[in-house]
């Protein structure tokens, strides 16, 4: 469905050139659910803008369903539905007018527009507010409307740029149910960027992007295997973190520790029985607690980029918060 070859995007700004996307290669199959992870400024939105024909590549080629985004942008646009990271509604129009406008632009008949508008507005729980101007909507309501709108014309490829930020858990669940159902119904391909771990976890494949480079692409399971079987999380005094880190490095050759300024340190456990206890015993300073857990995508992320994905976002994954909390 998507084929990206040697894609490069350079922005020229007043402070010189900035390479936002640096020679990435990627292909996504028809019907696949692909998630792109990366810290702020990694180049995710830029990649999506090129996919959706809003920006043009500086180098390389991108095709959607076999159609080149530069040579036949209007045919590509026909196939995609997109939910932008930033707002894109007309707030002087009502919710149903925004839907209707979209339906008209995509050539839906009146009957189709009415039907789609009703079922989707009901899905995102805005049916009662359909005649209110978008100006009067809350942030989450606007987001829901944008999602409903993006699905209205049954796109072959749905592009979602951090779609569920600011949505309550129930709405997020309903929307994901709907998206998965649409995938089943007409084989819709999904291309997602997100900072929610569990959203990325349910993807078929995950790409990790950092500073314009795609550092890894694989299934979530395989990516986690790359980290190792288990991750050890220790709670200590914040001022003790550095000494533990250098100790681990010298004594156990563990280089990829992740430090949390609140006094938490986590690292992939080297294989072997009883290792965790051995390590913890020898560490300097106070250790208040230790936890062993399976690696998650955040660990993958830390290991590949040295950055913490969830910490970039106000709304870190709830799952992530659980283990970051005091033990």
């Amino acid at each position, binding site marked *: 469905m998507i084929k990206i070859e040697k894609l490069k995007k350079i922005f020229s700004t007043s402070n010189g050139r900035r390479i936002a996307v640096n020679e990435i290669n990627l292909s996504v199959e028809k019907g696949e659910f692909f998630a792109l992870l990366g810290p702020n400024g990694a180049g995710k939105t830029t990649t999506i*803008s090129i996919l959706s024909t809003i920006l043009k590549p500086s180098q390389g080629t991108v095709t959607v369903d076999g159609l080149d985004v530069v040579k036949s942008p*209007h045919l590509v*646009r026909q196939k995609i539905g997109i939910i932008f990271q930033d*707002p894109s509604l007309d707030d002087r129009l009502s919710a149903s007018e925004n839907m209707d406008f979209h339906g008209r*632009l995509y050539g839906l008949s009146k009957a189709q527009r009415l039907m789609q508008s009703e079922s989707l507005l009901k899905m995102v729980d805005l049916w009662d507010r359909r005649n209110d101007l978008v100006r009067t909507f809350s942030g989450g309501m606007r987001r829901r409307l944008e999602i409903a709108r993006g699905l209205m014309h049954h796109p072959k490829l749905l592009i979602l740029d951090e779609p569920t930020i600011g949505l309550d858990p129930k709405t997020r669940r309903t929307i994901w149910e709907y998206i998965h159902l649409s995938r089943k119904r007409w084989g819709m391909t999904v291309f997602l960027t997100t900072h929610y771990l569990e959203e990325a976890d349910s993807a078929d494949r995950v790409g990790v992007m950092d500073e314009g480079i795609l550092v890894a692409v694989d299934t979530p399971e395989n990516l986690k295997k790359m980290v190792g079987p288990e991750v050890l999380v220790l709670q200590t005094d914040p001022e003790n973190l550095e000494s533990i880190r250098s100790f681990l490095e010298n004594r156990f050759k563990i280089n990829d520790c992740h430090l949390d300024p609140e006094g938490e340190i986590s690292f992939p456990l080297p294989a072997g029985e009883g290792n965790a206890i051995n390590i913890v015993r020898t560490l300097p300073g106070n250790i208040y607690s230790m936890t062993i857990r399976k690696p998650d995508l955040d660990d993958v992320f830390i290991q590949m980029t040295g950055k913490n994905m969830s910490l970039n976002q106000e709304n870190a994954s709830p799952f992530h918060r659980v283990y970051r909390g005091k033990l």
Partner: protein
Amino acid sequence: MTDDIFDNQAVSIDIPMPLVRDLRAIYTLWLRDVIRLWRDKVRLVGSLIQPLLFLFILGGGLRGRFSGGMAGSENYQQFIFPGILSMSILFTASFAGIAVVWDREVGFLKEVLVAPLSRTAVVLGKVLGGSTNSLLQALLLFALFPMFKIHVTIGQFIGAILTMFMIGLAQTAMGIALSARMSSSQGFMVLLNFIILPLYFLSGAMFPLIGLPTWLSMAVLADPLTYGVDLLRGILLGAHHFSLPIDILALGSFGSAMIFLAAKLFNMESPGL
């Protein structure tokens, strides 16, 4: 629970032919502009104030200074009436350009730019919407014609509407072309002021085009609005400075050139998205 949402809807949504789709899209963009103007009553009425000031205060004040017989008119107010109509069109038409930059700032423009319509259709939709808006506002002013003892036959009325729509098209197209590369509405307004006021003052809206110094008459000839004002004045007061074909040709070619330019500019990468 979610499953029954699908039960009453067609799974395949068929895609119309490109031309049909573009025509529908143009209509859609037009409709949005008209709905938005209708909602924005302050804008609808507020934009009448400036032309009214010119018409009654400037026109009234200078009326005694210019004694009759100017270009087929009985008095100065009657003379500038077509010019004031053109001014209202010029100002509201450029609003269409500001609206595009606003759409870009609030992000709505992206929704239009990823939709399956050609950039030419985007430009045509915006130009038609903007010129309809400016025509509606000019018609509100036009309703004052009996006050200036202008006699309008049905034929003249239709001619005036067509002319005003044409001026609107040309000026909106200019505004849209200018908006294509602009990402700040404040910057755009500054730019517009630089362009609109000279266009207006040079158009012969306020003075007859006879006995001007050479440099001024050159500038007047280069101003596309001149021909619009002349056409409208010719139709309403029966006195052309140029001839009907020249007016139509000049206005028409300026408008088409601007539409063409706007479509070209919109085909480039949109700034600041």
